[in-house]
């Protein structure tokens, strides 16, 4: 039971970030800046919680930081139609740099931990509820239909009178908020402290999870728990001291990510059925 809980704790930040990015990609936008938004969420959440003493305010600050970062991305890719891949990278580089600067005075300070409610970390079921909400909105509501239409054929959605850019802005902001929250989970619950680059590639793993989930929300849960289990496994094996150097165990999540991408992407029919057709393509409304 304890082991299961540890796995869930390790999986939750991945799941929250992946679900946010899944919604973004369903609207046809590829935001590679998850890592940058997440790390900004981690540092802003940590700082706000430490300064106010309230983890709730910390969480709100982290979400706000993620949204602000995502708006930067949105302004460039949606309003100025810059290249989404390059802009996402820029967002990650900026987030890593800025978080290092902001967090400099917080390194080594003892953090505040999100209190457990009924013996369980409230964000663990929270992430599942978030998944359920996203799955419901995307596949059972008109809003979800519009989002998927925008992601699959922005020209048709535009011709039908939908505001493609506005829909994408909203999705990008949702993704930013989720990434910020995922970051706060790292710095306020998983390891309540601030360490530079503490996301350690989790934002990128979340991006891979979206592909792994083939853009279906519930599969993201399975993927996130699988990844959480692997990182905990690596950690557990380390404590047994079977003579495997710790570095090789630390490589596991990254290697498994590559393996998962290979297995899923190799399945062409699955990919064709679910990949948003306009993923990564800029849209300029013709008037």
């Amino acid at each position, binding site marked *: 039971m304890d082991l299961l809980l540890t796995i869930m704790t390790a999986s939750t930040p991945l799941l929250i970030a992946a679900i946010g990015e899944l919604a973004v990609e369903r609207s046809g936008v590829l935001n*590679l800046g998850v890592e940058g938004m997440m790390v900004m969420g981690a540092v802003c959440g940590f700082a706000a919680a430490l300064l106010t003493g309230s983890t709730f305010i910390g969480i709100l600050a982290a979400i706000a930081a993620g949204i602000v970062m995502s708006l*930067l991305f949105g302004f*460039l890719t949606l*309003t*100025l*139609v*810059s*290249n989404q*891949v*390059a*802009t996402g*990278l*820029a*967002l990650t*580089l*900026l*987030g*890593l*740099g*800025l978080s*290092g*600067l902001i967090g*400099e005075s917080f390194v080594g300070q003892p953090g505040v931990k999100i209190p457990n409610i009924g013996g369980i970390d409230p964000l663990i079921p929270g992430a599942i509820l978030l998944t359920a909400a996203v799955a419901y909105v995307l596949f059972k509501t008109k809003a979800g239909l519009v989002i998927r239409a925008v992601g699959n054929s*922005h*020209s*048709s959605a*535009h*011709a039908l*009178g939908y505001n493609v850019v506005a829909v994408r802005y909203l999705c990008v902001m949702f993704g930013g908020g989720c990434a910020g929250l995922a970051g706060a989970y790292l710095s306020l619950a998983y390891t309540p402290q601030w360490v530079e680059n503490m996301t*350690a*590639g989790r934002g*990128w793993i979340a*991006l*891979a999870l979206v*592909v792994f989930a083939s853009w279906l929300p519930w599969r993201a849960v399975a993927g996130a728990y699988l990844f959480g289990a692997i990182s905990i496994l690596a950690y557990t094996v380390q404590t047994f001291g079977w003579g495997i*150097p710790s*570095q*090789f165990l*630390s*490589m596991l999540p*990254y*290697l498994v*990510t*590559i393996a998962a*991408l*290979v*297995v899923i*992407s*190799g399945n*062409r029919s699955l*990919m064709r059925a679910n990949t948003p057709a306009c993923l990564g393509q800029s849209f*300029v*409304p*013709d*008037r």
Partner: protein
Amino acid sequence: MRIVLEKRGEQSNAMAIASPFIALALTVIAGGIIFALRGFNPFSALYVYFVEPLTAWWSIEALIVKATPLVLIGVGLAVCYLANVWNIGAEGQLTAGAILGGMIPVLFPTFQSPLTLLLMLVFGALGGMAWGYIPAVLKNRFSANEILTSLMLVYVAQLLLDWLVRGPWRDPQGFNFPKSITFEGWQLLPNITGSIHLGALFAVLAGLGLAFIMGRTLKGFEIRVAGSAPRAGRFAGFSREKMVVFCFLLSGGLAGLAGCIEIASVVGQLQPQISPGYGFAAIIVAFLGRLNPIGVIFAGLLLALSYIGGEAAQITLGISDKIAKVFQGILLFFILACDTLILYRIRFEASARSSNLQPAE
């Protein structure tokens, strides 16, 4: 008020030249604001950061030394991005190059001849190529996204290096520090002048060589077609798979060479950290140079200035040198934003909704 993009009839050449400079100017302004927010006089801080390093010869030397890996990696990445191949794992290829190149002095410390250095550089390039080949193959065989796989391999390479220098390759006389033996003699690159080593020459040659390939050869044409008109490229019989492999081998090889050059010059040994993120900064270099090899040489010098200026600002003003990474990120943002001006005119309109619902495309 809303911003409306109006497509230009053809791309603006004036803007193509001006956009990096506009981006630079905006970055400097943003930098001034950041300094002012942190309670410094923005003008003197900007002077210390961006101008003072250029007033002394020793710091110009340092600038060129820092620019060397940035240019080497940047030119390779520029070719990749032109061909629409997204290698963002140059940092990992750099590390792999350093590992394989560093293997020679670590395993054969007494092997001292000009051949030593040559072998190190060749192995360095091969290491980077091998590391770059992995995402290329995964992309071609399984259509696995090369952005994610190349990035994941960065962490793997860094952990591998970490293990080597803490474990089997640790200097036995090194007081348990995670470092290999210190390189000496032919295990190090000779200096051209002052502290500028032979690597700078390689960087310039790589820039000029790729400028020639891009501008004057069929391969260069193929690369540009692969990026701007992939469908036309397929009809012309250009293989997309081969292009992906070519781009990864080229950029990986150059990154590996850069990594080997670093450990055979500035660093002088293998240690857990051998690069302050050159592989990622080189992404910015490639874009700032407008994906043009000659442009990349200048862009590399400029990014090097952001590192050197960061160190100067830390020493003189006590500002954290982490600000260098912030400037680099802001710079890339402004470059990408300004590139919009090449293809579009920007108009500001009162926010009246356009009523004509024309079918799209």
